[in-house]
Each structure stands twice: as C-alpha cells, then as structure tokens.
C-alpha cells in the first residue's frame, strides 16, 4: 500500500469500516483518487471495483478534485421554496460553473446538497463548511469576493 495512505491503520480491517476508511481518504485528499481506491481495496482485502461501487453510491464521496474553496448550495425543501435555484443560477453567472464542477483556476467548486439543516435561514449555502444564510444576489457576490481575495 502507498505510504501516504498509512492513516488507514487508524481503523480496523473489518469491512464494516470501509465507509470510515473512504471518509479518511477524502478528508486527506479532498476527494477519492484512483490511488485512494486502490489503497482502500488493498487495506480491506476486497476488489477495487467493490470499493468503487460503494464510493459511487454515496453522495458524500467525490471522484473529482475539488476547488480551493468548496461551495455547497443547499437545495433542501425550505431553501428550494425560498429560491435556491436562483442562487444556483447566480453562481452560474458569477463563476461560470454548474453544480459538480470546478472553476478553471481551481479557486471554486460548486455542489448542491440536500439539506444543511439550517432551514430557518433559507436560502443558505456553505463555503468551506461555514454557513451563510438568508442569501440574496448581493450578499452572495460579496461572500464570493471575500473568498476570491
């Protein structure tokens, strides 16, 4: 196994820890790379294709390298009712990317998530885990500027 994945030793080799192992890989790399899949497969003694199957099943796991700033726009029910599709449209206009993409300079990546659990502040988004609520276009642009600098 590639040395850089030695942190996998933190969990038991029991296959019920597969998801935990993948979460560790994603925490370290920011996504799950091909190398990551191979390392996890080797660690838990299972075929890489089975690992890939689990990765593709869960929304949390990314197979593409994310941008320096990770934007998650919430599209839960409350946010949707409060206009999250507009937020996504503004993002498209400001950054030129759709959900699931990364800007060419690698600064921002955009994803939609089902619910950030802050429904009373809808519409919300999070940038690198920090949640911003009651968004309008102006507020969103201002937040993007803060991260771009």
């Amino acid at each position, binding site marked *: 196994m590639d040395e850089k994945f030695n942190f996998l030793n933190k969990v038991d080799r029991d296959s019920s820890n597969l998801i935990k192992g993948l979460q560790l890989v994603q925490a370290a790399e920011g996504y799950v790379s091909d190398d990551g899949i191979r390392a996890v497969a080797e660690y838990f003694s299972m075929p890489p294709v089975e690992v890939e199957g689990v990765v593709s099943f869960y929304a949390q796991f990314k197979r593409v390298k994310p941008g320096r700033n990770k934007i998650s726009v919430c599209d839960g029910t409350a946010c949707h009712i*409060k206009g999250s599709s507009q937020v996504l449209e503004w993002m498209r206009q400001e950054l030129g990317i759709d959900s699931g993409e990364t800007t060419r300079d690698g600064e921002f990546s955009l994803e939609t998530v089902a619910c950030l659990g802050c429904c*009373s502040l*809808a519409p919300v988004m999070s940038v690198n885990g920090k949640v911003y609520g009651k968004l309008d276009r102006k507020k969103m642009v201002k937040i993007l500027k803060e991260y771009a600098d």
Partner: protein
Amino acid sequence: MNSRIKTLRIGVASCGIAAGAEAVQTRLRECAGNIPVIGVGCLGSCYAEPMVEAVLEDGSGILYGNVTPDDVPEILELGEKKRFTPPPARQAKELVKVLALAGRVDPTDFNDYTAHGGYEGLKNALKMTPEEVVNEMKLSGLRGRGGGGFPTGTKWSFLAAKKAPEKILICNADEGDPGAFMDRSLMESVPHQVLEGMLIAAHATGATKLFIYCRAEYPLAIKHLKIAIAQIYENKLNVIDGRVLEIIIKEGAGAFVCGEETALIASLEGKRGTPRFRPPFPTDSGYKGAPTMINNVETYGNVPLILREGGAEFAKIGTEGSKGTKLFALAGDLKYPGLVEVPMGITLGEIVFDMGGADRDSVKAVQTGGPSGGCIPVELFDTPVDYDSLRSLGAIMGSGGMIVIGKYRCMVETARYFLDFTHRESCGKCTFCRVGTTRMFETLERIVAGKGVPEDLDFLEDLGKKIKAGSLCGLGQTAPNPVLATLRYFRHEYEAHVKEHRCEALQCNALVKLKLDQSKCVKCRQCIRVCPVGAVSEEFVIDSSKCTRCNSCMDCCPKHAISRVTKEN
C-alpha cells in the same frame, strides 16, 4: 454590569452559529467578567438567532434575540433593547416536554444534565425488570417518530424475546428529509437524553452493542455525542445488568435511502446502502446477522420522560392513537420558522398560523413528511395532526418537517422538485422506483417547461400508483406521494400548465416574462445596472429573449415597476 445576572446562556447549535452566535459568544466572554457564559443548544426560535438568555439569581431568565456583538454591553445591563418575547400564540399552544432541557443545559456538561433530572429515567428503569420496562413503553403508547409510526413498545418486545449472544441497538440519526432538523437539534442540544433513551432500551431488550448512525453533515451533533459517550463511559453508565456496552458512532455518507432500516444496516456493514426484502425483519436478522432494532433519535429522546413520569402519565397527552408530543421543524413561507413541540392532535392551522405566524391570506398548502409526504391544502387545515389523520389525506406525519407553501409557489414545480430529489436518491434496485421516478420527473420537467400535454396527468397518476405497488422499500412506496397529493388537491394548476401553458403562481420561468411598467418607472437605471445579461434596454424595455427571469431587476426596483406576468404564446 447588572449584578442580578447569575449566568449567561447563548444558543450555539448549528442555526445559531450560522446566524453569527460565535462572535457574540466571544464578545460575551470578553465582557462578562466572572459571570459564566454557557454555550447551550437550540432555543427553538431560529428566526431570532443569535439568542442570549440572562439567567437571574432567582432562576428566571431574560431572553434577547437577533443579538450582535455590539449589543453585548446593553445585555449585561439588562437593557430593554433586543429583548425577545416569543409570540404569545406560540407560547400558548406549545407543550415542551422532549425539548424541555434544550437551550437550558450545556450539552457538553454531564453534571448539568443530571442536575436537571437527567438519568433519573435510567435509574428507574434499572430498578425494574426488562419486561416491566417494555410494558411501561407499551402503556405509554409511544409510536416511532421516524415516520412509520410503529408502536415502540411492541418493537422492543420483539428484540427482548430473542435469545442471542449479541443483540444490536441502532439509533437512526440519518435525518435525510430535506427540511427537517428536529433530530439535529436534539442531538446537538441534549445528546445525553438520546443516549439515556438508548441505555434504557438496552436494559429492556438485552442489547449488547449500541450504534448511532448519524449524517456526516451534522458535525456538531457528532461532536456532542462523542463527548457525551466519553462521559457515560467515565461514569460507567454503560454497564447495564453486568454487560459492558459499547456505543459506536457511525457517520453516514449521504444517501437518503439509508433512512430505511435494511438499507441502514447494509450501510453500517460498509456496503452500498440498498434495502432488502423483509422478512427476515431486522429483529430476527439484522446487523451481521444478529437481532437488531432500530429507533429514531426523537423516539429515544422520548424514552427518558416515559421512565421518569410513567407510561400512564405520558399517555395522557395526545389523541387516541397518537400519544405524547411531536417536534416539528417549521420552515418556508412563514414569519417564525423554527422548532416547535406540540401535543399530538393539535390542528395544522394552529401550528402554521398561530405558532408559525404565517399570513392566513397568503398560505396555499403545507408539505409534511418531506419527499415521502404530501401537500395538504389550506382548506383542510383543521385536520388534527396525528399519524392516522395525515395518512388519510395522502400525506404522512413523516419525521416532522413542515414546509409552509405560499400562494405564489407553483405546486407543479414543488412536485417536480420532490421527484428531482427522489429519482436521484433511488438506490436503483427496484425497476419501478429507478425508472418510474425518472419518467415521472421527466414528465414534470416537460410540464413546467410549458411542453406538457393533457394526457400527461393520467400518465403521472397511473405510473405513480404502479411505483408505489412495485417498490421494495419506503422510498419507492412513498416517492410518488408529492405528485399524487398535488394532483388530488391542485389539479387545476396542472391543467393550466398542460392546457393553457400558464403558471397560476407565475413561478415557472418558461411560462412567464418580466414586464416593466413605464408609468411607474422613474428611470433610475438600477435595473439596467443590475441585469446580469443586459436584457434591459436604455428605453427601459425588457428583452424577453435575453432575460433569464432571475428577478434581480424586480428585487432592486424602488418603485416596484417590474413584475412577472404570463407569457403570451
């Protein structure tokens, strides 16, 4: 500084933090001198976050809402500005039982919880035999709060009756319904209460291993649970009837279907979270083949109350078939979004209008039960909220998300939104669910784009019924509900879309355009400046072919001269 202040509490659950509570907390700590500043959980009134409570010597408290760091000196003098009083109608209707300690105790302080009656339920339970505890649960009439509404005591008796070397207890904390945050609040605010419920269940059922399957999107809940578990180990509360119980937190990885029992178990085992046929039921063969029982966070949160006050006392609240209180996450088009706890049997209208402060004239419907539920129109708001009444309307209680939908929202678009969610979350195992929800979604997409035909409505109804019949698990069996319920109550909106290509609510972008009323316009040019695509001309005419209907101009116009109107064909 006012010398009557004994302690200061600040709500630092996720909602509070998102509203800026951390900065307020820092400032409080800087300015409060010797007065302890305690970070507590959810105070329920999310719309007024960040919230601070000044607790006085006599134990009473003064609440402050929408607090900024600059308000801190004023609060320390117990000033009048920013004082917060919950709406009187809300206070009158609310019945706080499960959430009684939320916002009152420090979630990370074991002694604070026990000082407020915590673990007394467990103590009582340990004095009883397991059978007596199960009977107490049956007497209480508690039904599963995760949505299904299965009687909890009966479920416990199934696991208790099993003879096996290993028995597993799982807390389903994979709160995946978009728009629901009851479980998050409970875990963040009173993690010990949930864990106490699990320990009582372990005594009653003879469980040997306890799992909490929690969404990875809830880092604060996970943190607080981990701290609480360490404290339980320290105080040896995990030693039940001579068994040393292991309590393990497993983080989910984002899959709605994992709220389904058998899918959750597969996910716990590290596999793709697909459901399987039942029987065998998990209580016969669950996690790695061992007898397994799954209860929801809120269900466990009710258990300590039952063991503290007795099942008969608990059963005094609620209706014939639904006992106790229920938490609802109120959101959408209303004045006071937040978390409310109400007795079962309260009407939808009381929750939405009296407690939520929604405007009676502008509400069209309420969506309960998230993507598995249905929309209930305002005409039926005198329906009592209990498991059976809601089901008879084509909706479900669900886990407790309640989204208020205003008059200017399109019901077809709302249904499309839910199908967008479920067709993506379908695990793909059953053909009807995998392909059927996708076809329903595509049909709805076509309708909101103005390309629907009248036959689409029959097609949706027919396919919806078939998906319900042909799916293995709760996801597929309920996925068509939002469409079927809106077709039942809002058929005229669908018909306007497919027959006249008109959206009554003026929400569907493909069927509306933006119009600038020249007689109201003061030529301030703000619309021209703000338009991202240059669709507003120097003569203040909006070019519909360029316009993306983003509403930027409408929102910034000081004279409200711009509005959405039906697009003529």
